[in-house]
């Protein structure tokens, strides 16, 4: 049993979870009070929007594209949530639906014109930011009550963020890894030609994947506003890089449709916890960003070592 668990392949799969467990253990050791209902709630709260953003980025990476506008997009959806969705729910819901459609359209544009997604999304980040500034010129707005009460839910025994994260990872994992449509969607990232030859429309796949990314981007913005209660046009800009790092930490690859939804959620939580870990260490807050980079490099280095041993055996 133990020997089976220690093969390079399973080590590789387990690596994200092991990294997260190690980080959590270190945090519990440094600050035992986090090991409570309340502590875990505080610790993991902000991991929920980051995880949603990471899952959004994962859909894009799955079809061999990269979204450098995700942070700006989530800022925009947060602004819409805190203004229109609060004041005139119908208009807000329509605007958010429009955001999802815009993302699907972006996927179509990138596919039809065969454009580099990096550049298109970099350009779009300006557009999202511009709209966000128009909607909410100064920080403010108010979270709709139902989102606020959902995000501050206090279920018995298990803190809400843990339930939300498990449900998120589970649903996406089943939908993408265990269902028939999921296989086609991932296959389009692995070998577009063969999926196209088999009769599937790559255009549709790209639109669905970008649309899903838009949907989860919207959810991330809503969850974020539910936690912060107000929004501003720059609220989520750092999510772009965090989401890419989260997918890679969780075992995803850049090409070939090799992704892991549960891994992506774990990766996002690891990055979110890295900040808390440092503050418990009483390390200089200047190193917050640096530590995220260091953790990323460390996990990738471990992955290389595991791969090397796999190649040898």
């Amino acid at each position, binding site marked *: 049993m133990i020997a089976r668990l220690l093969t390079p392949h399973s080590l590789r799969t387990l690596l994200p979870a092991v990294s997260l467990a190690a980080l959590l253990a270190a945090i519990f050791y440094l600050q035992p009070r986090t090991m409570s209902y309340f502590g875990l709630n505080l610790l993991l709260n902000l991991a929920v929007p980051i995880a949603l953003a990471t899952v959004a980025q994962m859909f894009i990476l799955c079809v061999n594209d990269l979204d450098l506008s995700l942070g700006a997009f989530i800022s925009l959806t947060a602004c819409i949530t805190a203004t229109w969705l609060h004041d005139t729910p119908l208009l807000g819901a329509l605007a958010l639906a429009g955001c999802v459609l815009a993302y699907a359209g972006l996927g179509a544009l990138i596919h039809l*014109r065969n454009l*580099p997604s990096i550049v298109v999304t970099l350009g779009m980040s300006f557009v999202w930011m*511009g709209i966000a*500034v128009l909607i909410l*010129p100064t920080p403010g707005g108010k979270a709709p009550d139902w989102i606020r009460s959902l995000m501050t839910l206090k279920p018995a025994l298990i803190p809400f963020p843990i339930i939300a994260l498990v449900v998120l990872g589970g649903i996406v994992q089943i939908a993408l890894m265990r269902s028939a449509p999921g296989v086609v969607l991932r296959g389009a990232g692995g070998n577009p030609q063969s999926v196209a030859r088999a009769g599937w429309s790559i255009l549709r796949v790209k639109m669905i994947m970008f649309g899903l990314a838009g949907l989860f981007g919207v959810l991330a913005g809503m969850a974020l506003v539910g936690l912060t209660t107000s929004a501003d046009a720059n609220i989520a800009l750092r999510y772009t890089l965090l989401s890419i790092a989260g997918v890679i930490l969780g075992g995803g690859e850049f090409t070939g449709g090799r992704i892991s939804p549960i891994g992506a959620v774990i990766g996002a939580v690891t990055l979110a916890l890295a900040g808390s870990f440092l503050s418990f260490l009483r390390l200089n807050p200047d190193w917050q960003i*640096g530590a995220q980079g*260091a953790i990323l490099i460390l996990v990738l280095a471990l992955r290389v070592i595991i791969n090397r041993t796999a190649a040898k055996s």
Partner: protein
Amino acid sequence: MSLLQKPWIWSWIGTLAVCLVIIGISGLGAGTQVLSAALSFGTFFVIVAIGQMFVVTLGPGNVDLSIPACMTLASTVAMKVMGGSSTMLLPGLLIAIAIGTIIGLLNFGLIRLLRIPPIIATLSSSFLFQSTAIWYNRGLRVKPPEPLADFATAKLAGVPLLAILVLVLTVIMHVILHHSLFGRAVLAVGQNSRAASLAGIKVERTRLLTYLTSAVLAAICGFFLAGFSGGAALNMGEEYLLMSIAVVVIGGTSVAGGFANLPGLWGASLFMFLLVTMLNTLGLSAGIRLILTGAIIVGVIAISGRRGRT
């Protein structure tokens, strides 16, 4: 090949069009002033874009995301070491270049040793560099030595001195790209790295030199930008990430790698600066300006995009 088929021509046509609009709105006198400003600011875009262009030309997945962090770190350390004293100018420049060299080596080391895509390697290393800069700088803005500030803002017959020097650099890099062993190796690796390696080109050495070039140019750009704008600031490199990539692509360099050109970098840099200026002169609000900038970038790429991926 006729002029219209050159990949860089579109950025220059765009520049000309925006130029005419600006002159149309605010007159010839103001127009020439704007053009002079465009040369000043565009020069800095060109410096980093040259490095980014070589990196992008290496092939799909090659992008240097650590350029802003490299600019910030190199200029912060250089400004602090110089401490505003003009006798320390040369050591300051050397330190900036040394930091660029270290960053380039680290980036390549990560790509090579961890076998990760360059995007992730430069992304994670940039986190480290940015943190180092924050820790080292402590939020202070150290003034550049007087001669550096004078040099960075000097003008020769109305043309910024730096622009002239960078123009010379562009010509040198043009020769390197098309006529030197290194430049041709970069193009070959970008077109087909396996074929290049079978033809005896040292692929890894080419990649190392490319990432070194990019980081050193970013460091030099940061050094002079700090002189130009009155000191190093932690967010000084922010817009250069997007700009370096946008300028390379709008300038007609293929994102798929293997095909690059330098004239387009100048055209695209001037275009990007003039575009923002034009939207400013039109008196639009910040939000509309951002939207139009983004929409025009995406539009230009969507119209001109297809040719690059053949």
